[in-house]
């Protein structure tokens, strides 16, 4: 058994199974077509289920997949067949809630694509090379949303609009917490 809990991939697909953002941490799918095949299979398998209130789960090709849907967004987290299901569900919940925070309540495909940079950063903060980095949605949100100027930079280098932006970010962050 793999001793350290590990995540094989995290997927964010739309309501037709197309990619919005995906991240693979394992060599199990060496090519893009292998990845697409996996996504298609996972999507078709879970499409008809209702995973809107609670995260759902399924076994698939010796993988455990936990998933949750909102609007036209489908969130998936995949682990090996012996992985602790609840750890995977915790990662999924962290990702799901963090995206919810970052998109400020309007969680749908359009909003997700418009803020794709935030979603990519979010993926980057959750898992590193398969190892869980952080599962607390608020912490993840905080790390992603700290869109301010380098604190070390002299104040004079900041433009008015940047200063305003910084202030706004600080404000939203404190609201989110």
């Amino acid at each position, binding site marked *: *058994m793999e*001793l*350290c*809990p590990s995540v094989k991939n995290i997927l964010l697909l739309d309501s037709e199974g197309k*990619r919005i*953002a*995906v991240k693979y941490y394992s060599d*199990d799918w060496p090519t*893009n077509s*292998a*990845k*697409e095949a996996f996504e298609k299979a996972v999507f078709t398998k879970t499409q008809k*289920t*209702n995973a809107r209130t*609670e*995260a*759902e*789960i*399924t*076994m698939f*090709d*010796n993988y455990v997949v*936990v998933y949750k849907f909102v609007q036209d967004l489908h969130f998936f987290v995949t682990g090996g067949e012996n992985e*602790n*299901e*609840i*750890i*995977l*569900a*915790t990662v999924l919940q962290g990702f799901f809630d963090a995206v919810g925070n970052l998109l400020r309540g309007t969680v749908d*495909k*359009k909003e997700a*694509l*418009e803020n*794709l*940079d935030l979603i*990519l*950063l979010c993926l*980057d903060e959750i898992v*590193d*090379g398969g*190892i*869980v*980095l*952080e*599962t607390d949605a608020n912490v993840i949100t905080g*790390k*992603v949303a*700290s*869109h*301010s*100027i*380098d*604190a*070390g*930079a002299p104040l004079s*280098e900041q433009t008015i609009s*940047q200063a305003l932006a910084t202030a706004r970010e600080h404000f939203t962050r404190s609201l989110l917490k």
Partner: protein
Amino acid sequence: MAQPLVKKDDDRDDEADYSPFLGIEKGAVLQEARVFNDPQLDPRRCSQVITKLLYLLNQGETFTKVEATEVFFSVTKLFQSRDIGLRRMVYVMIKELSPSADEVIIVTSSLMKDMTSKTDMYRANAIRVLCRITDGTLLTQIERYLKQAIVDKNPVVASAALVSGIHLLQTNPEIVKRWSNEVQEAVQSRAALVQFHALALLHQIRQNDRLAVNKLVTSLTRGSVRSPLAQCLLIRYTSQVIRESANNTQTGDRPFYDFLEGCLRHKAEMVIFEAARAITELNGVTSRELTPAITVLQLFLSSSKPVLRFAAVRTLNKVAMTHPMAVTNCNIDMESLISDQNRSIATLAITTLLKTGNESSVDRLMKQITNFMSDIADEFKIVVVEAIRSLCLKFPLKHRSLMNFLSNILREEGGFEYKKAIVDSIVILIRDIPEAKESGLLHLCEFIEDCEFTYLSTQILHFLGIEGPKTSDPSKYIRYIYNRVHLENATVRAGAVSTLAKFGAMVDALKPRIFVLLRRCLFDNDDEVRDRATLYLNTLGGDGAVVETGEDVKEFLFGSLDIPLVNLENSLKNYELSEESFDIDSVPKEVKTQPLAEKKAPGKKPTGLSAPPTGPPSTVDAYERLLSSIPEFANFGKLFKSSAPVELTEAETEYAVNVVKHIFDGHVVFQFNCTNTIPEQLLENVTVIVDASEAEEFAEVATKPLRSLPYDSPGQTFVAFEKPEGVSAVGKFSNMLRFIVKEVDPSTGEAEEDGVEDEYQLEDLEVVAADYMLKVGVSNFRNAWESMGADCERVDEYGLGPRDSLAEAVNAVINLLGMQPCEVSIQCLFFFGIYAVDMDMHFTFTFLTALHWTVKYHVVNCFFTAIPV
């Protein structure tokens, strides 16, 4: 066609459903990336372009080498900007581009500057990026900062360094191992995730040192680990320690069990579950130990969260395989899960119930399952069918209702895999439950009347040919079989002809009627069907006379091919057209054991069916060629068997030696594979001095020394012994490696003139009975067994000692006797091997009952001149 119309609709949809990446194109984005080079950087715009590039990569677009390099160089310009958001995107972009070693140098200084920055976010991310793209040489330069970062007071920085350490341990273990002091300090961190990452790294650093792991677990299980994830890790390490120490402490309480049990009361569900699962997986777990774990899992069964229900039912399902009684308490909760929305959960619940159910509850359960079957997918149905099969084998008295169930679902709609699972199950039930035979065969007959799968039809026809003639009234099957000759495709027709012929050969009374039918087949429009009919008519004496079919004719027509098809295929490929005809006896009979991993996960890795069988290209052939090229061994005759290599040295010693035992009729040759692992040494005149004083029947006849053994290039030396011909002599040999060692100048690679003679003690080696046993696969064990006759059978009993599982007992028998496991039935295992004694053929069967762990072996001693060794 309708295609353009649909397309238009799609476009309109997309307009409504606006995407910022609509109509995005790689070339245009690469053009846009030029803004990275602007003297006055616009962070917002640059961020957008990076997002577009990442979007393209994410959608599966690839950059050419030139494009990637260009993008990489311009991205490095963005380090000038102080915008944190942009910097974060730059970090992600660099990781995605995974630059080559010569490109890495460009960003190294920028990243090293960020690593020592005052901004925590810079430090954390720069560490992650740098460790991802760096190689060993750079690592020594930044090691100091990484050590500092591990104990950084900001948890994000510490975690970044620790996780990077875990990744780097794979490539640069010697460097990461130097950080253990810092890592140990981080284990005590107040931040939950730092503790988790530190524990994971510390364990990986020490994983080969069993004592250190033991100490780590002992100290941490006493203290309190704060993070649930770290606690899960600790549970995994603890079960590993328990597993490894199990052999030493058979008596008394299991060490650390109290810790696991305590974790069942943890507040985090992931920890509770991890602990419960760890307890259920303990070796030889007692029911007293199981109870608390089952209790928490039972609570999970009625949770509102599907994930918890799934996790619990999956674990209980596994427990039910070995301890069905322990799970019966959960049966009521399980039954309510049959109607669970999540069909995976429902299927697991059903199959668990099938395993734990008793004879009286079978009928009630079957009623519930019948309703359930109609609304689940094929893959779940297959699981249920398999569970029903094992239930039927467990309660043979219930075969009527279970067989009826199987035949009912066989008639319903379903894909090939599902139908195959049902047919396989019926076949197994027919074989193992004699009372179920007639009804099962009729169910199969009815099925082929309306079967769309050629493969299944031919399989069933073949099976009917074997079992049908042995029934009380074979004639009633003929109609079903002959119908196939009329209504099916050529493959099935040919199969039906063979089956008819089998009935004719086995049941003399049916012969005249069969011949009439076969003669009709002579006018079939397919070659194969006509050929088969002609062959059978001629060999079985279809000229009208009712004669008893000779044994040799039966053997020729219906006897099993006792050669693995892979080997036959290889031999035929190697066969060159010449005067000599192909000799089937020259095909090796040894079954090549496939790597275990491949068997375990079929289809998981895309190995491809057309790929040639992996593994060393026919080791037997290779050995044979090697040995016959050595003149001293040329007259030993044909190689019977070569053993797998046996290590004679510990891992990581100066010289690594393993031995392969080659068995000939009157000789044994030891092939010592030696590897010199010291770069500063050259070994010459390498021999192995074998002391056979404890192996009386062996006499040394030849040695072939190895002239020179340079660093890291393996070589072989041989020692040959004579043994009495046709006797499976066994014995123990002690070995000494003797050689002349010469110092090598590492800078020039030249060896010194003079050498010193030296010796190196190797471990003992044994020749055992298994070395004389050739693994042979038989397609149908029972047929082969029955064809032996009872007069040449010995029965004896040997204890195997206590074994934890069936699998372990099987391994023990394989190791002891070197035979090939052929079939696993309810409680029996059948092995098959060819034993080389005096060049007579002895077929040896081993029969193993799982209940008492004793071996009964039947030695069938028959003389087969036709099969040379």
